[in-house]
């Protein structure tokens, strides 16, 4: 079964991350929305995310992905994803990979901070990660069995304009999404909005696991905006999801987000959770392996 080596690889990668030195992360709770913060240069963040989704008139599913997020420079973060899913009463499949890059065009902080995002994805039709909702992506798309959909192959370029601001401890982020399937499919559009805040803004003078400063919470909303020929809200799905994150002093971050479908085209529930760990000095370590200085 092809999925076995993939999962073994994911497991090995995660273990690899556990034994390297970790940094205390200061992560936002968002799962779908991006803010303007990039990975620190030379650090690697290894993340695992799960989504349990309900399916009307079909089988519920559990999709999951691994993210390897590397800070190439202070203005460029590159990220590699491996995706898979299990549809209950059906099968478990590896659905493909994604490679994304985020660039910070401005040198300083402003009221609104833009980030440019470019992603290439190579997935089959079984992809159910719902990392973003675009075009006319609706719940009924997921009714077909894995055996049927895995024959479909999608190569897609996705662009996002990420806008993000901070005000009195609050972060407000807006993502405008445009995606183009590299076959003859029109441009598709989507959005994601997020608001979040740490539960306490000041740090405490002692190390603590359950301090309020380690928790942040917020809400995000995301959905499709149709395509080039039918732009708008008609036949699109939308979600509203409270989000929460817990940054542990050991370097781990836990995220939880129950997402609720806002119309008949949406899955009723998308329950997401994720676990991540930031590995400091990864770039320097790899560089030294190949005889580099740092």
């Amino acid at each position, binding site marked *: 079964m092809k999925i076995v080596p993939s999962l073994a690889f994911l497991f090995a990668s995660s273990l690899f991350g556990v034994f390297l030195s970790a*940094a205390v992360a*200061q992560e936002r709770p968002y799962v779908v929305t991006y803010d303007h913060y990039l990975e620190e240069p030379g650090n690697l963040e290894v993340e695992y995310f799960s989504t349990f989704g309900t399916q009307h008139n079909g089988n519920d599913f559990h999709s999951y992905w691994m993210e390897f997020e590397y800070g190439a*420079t*202070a203005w460029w973060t590159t990220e*590699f994803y491996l995706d898979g899913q299990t549809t209950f009463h059906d099968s478990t499949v590896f659905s493909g990979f994604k490679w994304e890059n985020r660039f910070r065009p401005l040198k300083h*902080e402003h009221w609104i901070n833009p980030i440019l995002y470019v992603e290439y994805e190579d997935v089959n039709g079984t992809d159910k990660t719902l990392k973003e909702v675009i075009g006319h992506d609706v719940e009924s798309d997921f009714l077909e069995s894995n055996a049927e959909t895995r024959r479909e192959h999608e190569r897609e370029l996705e662009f996002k304009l990420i806008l993000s601001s901070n005000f009195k401890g609050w972060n407000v982020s807006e993502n405008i999404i445009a995606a183009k399937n590299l076959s003859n499919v029109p441009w598709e559009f989507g959005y994601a909005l997020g608001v979040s805040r740490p539960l306490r803004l000041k740090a*405490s*003078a002692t190390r603590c696991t359950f301090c309020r400063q380690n928790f942040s919470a917020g809400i995000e909303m995301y959905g499709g905006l149709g395509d080039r020929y039918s732009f708008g809200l008609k036949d699109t799905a939308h979600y509203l999801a409270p989000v929460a994150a817990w940054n542990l002093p050991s370097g781990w971050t836990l995220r939880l987000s129950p997402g609720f479908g806002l119309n008949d085209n949406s899955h009723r529930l998308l329950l997401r959770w994720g676990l991540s760990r930031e590995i400091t000095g990864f770039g320097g370590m790899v560089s030294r392996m190949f005889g580099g200085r740092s």
Partner: protein
Amino acid sequence: MKATLSTLAVCAGLLAISLPLASQEKGSKVGIKPNADVYAELAKAPEKARNRLNPLENDSEAVAAGRLLFEDHCAECHGDKAEGGKKGPNLRAPEVQNSTPGTLFWLLTNGVVRKGMPVWSKLPEPQRWQLIRYLKSLGVPQEPGSASSQIPR
């Protein structure tokens, strides 16, 4: 399958490029350059930012909290004692210690993105001020010439 493999090869290639690029960027920031260059960014703080006062100046816990924040987020680059590391300059140098709290806050908030220092506005404002309190509490080392001679090389 062939297309997937070639795409993966391109991704791996680009990732391989990014690793030395990251190292090079950091290298350009450390002691190879004279002090004036390393600390030049401090002089770019606008007047208004420079004159800001630390609202936690009288907070009795700020230094201790700032020390923990420094260990978590800054020591990796600037060294455990803030005397400079492989990537970041000495923060006990007179150029830093003689800067106003507002200047340091401005630099921390904006980073020096093109030279490898990320923006730290992801830390809430009070935490950045706590960090500044800790940095200012370190002072310049007493031994003559020890601070400026400890710029990492």
